[in-house]
């Protein structure tokens, strides 16, 4: 079959292989560009804000907090720099690595790619809102049991992404986990623990504890 295809393409003087060899750099063609989480719906209220700081109200983990931010300030920077909510981490700062993943109205977003003022009026849930060291969310407990963290800097983003993933797919296969969590990156190499952790948490969450 391969030979036949090659034969047909050779007639056009440009085979698929030649195209890939000459037409693109390797870095661009590995086919591994991670899928990104859905961005929040862009809000357009027609009101021009800024450029100076404006007063905003953000509902974070159930509490409404007032903050002065410039309109260009990302949700991530507002959380970390203005509100001392530092669970979400800044790593790539441009929507690639997932370390800043938070939930906006239950949907996972990269907080580095959402403006703080756009997040007003929405429920923002960060990793701190899922559980605490004394009262772990089943996902957090499963991450610990399966050693799904090393340095731990990507872990909060992963935990939040996993929460959103399981909300949408409470009974996933390992293959679905590997596709569904493609938007988060880890440098220490903790993926071997993350897959089993999500499976274990899925099991623990069945029976109504899912949104606990």
């Amino acid at each position: 079959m391969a030979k036949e295809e090659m034969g047909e393409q050779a007639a056009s003087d440009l085979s698929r292989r030649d195209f890939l060899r000459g037409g693109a750099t390797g870095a661009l063609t590995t086919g591994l560009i991670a899928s990104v989480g859905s961005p929040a719906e862009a809000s357009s209220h027609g009101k021009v804000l800024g450029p100076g700081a404006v007063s905003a109200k953000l509902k974070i983990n159930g509490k409404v907090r007032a903050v002065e931010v410039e309109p260009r300030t990302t949700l991530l920077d507002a959380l970390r720099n203005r509100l001392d909510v530092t669970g979400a981490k800044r790593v790539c700062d441009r929507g690639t690595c997932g370390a800043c993943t938070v939930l906006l109205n239950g949907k996972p977003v990269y907080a580095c790619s959402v403006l703080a003022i756009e997040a007003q009026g929405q429920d923002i849930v960060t990793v701190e809102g899922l559980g605490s060291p004394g009262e772990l969310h089943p996902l957090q407990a499963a991450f610990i049991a399966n050693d799904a963290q090393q340095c731990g800097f990507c872990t909060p983003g992963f935990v939040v992404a996993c929460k959103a993933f399981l909300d949408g797919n409470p009974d996933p296969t390992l293959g679905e986990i590997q596709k569904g969590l493609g938007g988060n990156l880890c440098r220490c190499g903790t993926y071997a623990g993350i897959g089993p952790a999500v499976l274990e948490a899925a099991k623990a969450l069945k029976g109504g504890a899912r949104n606990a």
Partner: protein
Amino acid sequence: MPEYNWPEPSKRRHIGKRTSRLDGPDKTTGHATYSYDVNRPGMLFAKILTCPHAHAKITKLDVSAAKSMAGVKSVRITQDVGTEIQWELDEIVAVAATSEEVADDAIRAIQIEYELLPHFVTEEHKDKAPSSEVAKEESTGDPDAAAAAAEVKIKGFYGIPAISHCCMEPHGQVCEWEGQDQLTAWCSTQAVSGLPGQFADKLEIPTSNVRVITPYMGGGFGSKFSADRWGIDCAEMAKEAQAPVKLFLERNAELAVAGDRPSAYAKIEVGAKKDGTLTYWSSESWGSGGIAGSRGSPPLPYVVEVPNRRQKHISVVTNSATARAWRAPNHPQACFLTMSALEDLAAALKMEPLDFFLKNVGLMGERSDIYESELQKCADLIGWKQRWHPRGEGKGPIKQGLGLALHTWGGRAHNSNCEVTVYPDGNVEAKLGSQDLGTGTKTVIAMVLAETFGLGLDDVKVHIGDSRYPASGGSGGSTTVGGVSSSTRRAALNALAQVFEKVAPGLDAAADQLEIENGAIQVKGTPDRSLSWRKAAARIGPTPITASGKNPGPGKLNDSGVGGVQMADVSVDVETGVVKINQLVAVQDCGLIIDLKTAESQVYGALIMGASYALMEEKILDPVSGRMLNADMEFYKLPGIGDVGKLEVHMMTGERHDKRGVIGLGEPPVISTGAAISNAVANAIGVRVPYLPLTPDRVLDALAKGGAA
């Protein structure tokens, strides 16, 4: 004097067991405060103006507009007019302001002009390099005679590029002064005890006035041992502004400047007898770690001591930032170069690589029998004997292949001091000026402490990450677990001896007749003459007992020198050139394992990092502009959870390994993954892809030159 040894395997409550890391609850809930997360009252945010050119002289610099902006509190010129900048993204000016946004604006307001100078960033073409020198040249045996006598010989060219550390937490710190000469710095560092001296030297204050704190750190991999110029700038700006300053690198600088593993290229000739016995090696290698040259040389030939050999390594200077130690410095390069050439030779010999390496196991030094058992174990786990086929014999467009590689590392325990305190309430704590990079250091210390006192992990506390604690070595070269476990064990035994002194009279025995058994102190072998730990501790009086221990010290608690074997199973689509990893198997020895769970995690992580540099990672420097084209995480690629295949880890345990004591583990398992994957690809497609990473274009190029179509 206590006997300084590890407890017998049968008596261990914690050591060797699978223990979840103790900081897991803080890390998974976002409660772990990394240096980047530290927010101090009144803190300023700093940004850096970096140079966009690989080689240029600053001809004009005007920071007045930045200085006069509202909210700007400090502007610090790091490199002024007339300075020759030697790499892209080098630091020129730092600004501290009331917000990141204001600091960004101030950076944009700086006026700067450069005179462009010629640059060189393509060290693969070493003959065009304006500056290079021979870094190493040596010869053993009679290589010329061996070359003439070799029955089978191959020549090959291989290359592995510079890659970046890409720590998740970038390099940086928060600096805060008390008065004019007391500095506290929350640093993302691998060297808590080593950093105060670096700050003190540059800032001209006493070392004892500098406190470095690192409660958690988000990855280093060898790149975070220095206070760095931006660290000193941060401290200087905090002093000028009289306010705490946070300065962390942006991702582009993190990738381009703060991380670099030197490249290595080599022309290799290697020969053997017809039966596979290696007789001859000759290599001319070169590489660059930026402006400081190659920073050492790869140990060639790697693992296998070919009897007649010569090697020459040339250090090439390029216009990029100086290399930093990257997990097992020079070993992944040496392993890839050597194992590729040896596998090519095995193919020329028409030998199975497994048989070829087993045939030459006698050349693998004093622990060659360990390599032999590791090769066999790894082969069993991946099903080598049932599944291996000669090069390029797969059918259809998806070709499957197997490859293997071997590695070695030292991992000798570093210098470490530990102070252990026993409180009258029975609580026990340890303090060390060490750091946990995510390797499980804190957990390992707690396990040793709890083991020694016969307690549970909840009964002990471990304090690390503060330079005010007893000095401990930097975490590099797989030296930490050996160092901290040994110093902690000695300190704990010393403290326990003092407890024995206090309680001996009450038990009507001499102190040296006491032992800890099942959570109680008892007269040796006499459980009915015992005191529970809490009761015993209550007898020490109102003042806690403290004792210290250090490494090196008495007794054999640690060792150095490990091997390790890895095998890879890949599929290659010969129409697209895409390499997919089906399975990676690692078999690893590392002496006595304290925490099996975090030890295995180190190896799993190393396999993934190895897969990453095998398939994706490369600092791509543009020959025309000298800039790094992929200084971001879209195009500096790391694998995701679905890209690494099935992973299997087997740790070598048992008496032989156990009695060696503790040996470090961070580096060794990352060394041979790239080589094993490259060999598996060669086996799959029937031709060597001479470069890492094995990107589709390179695979297709290799196929075009001959191989399985």
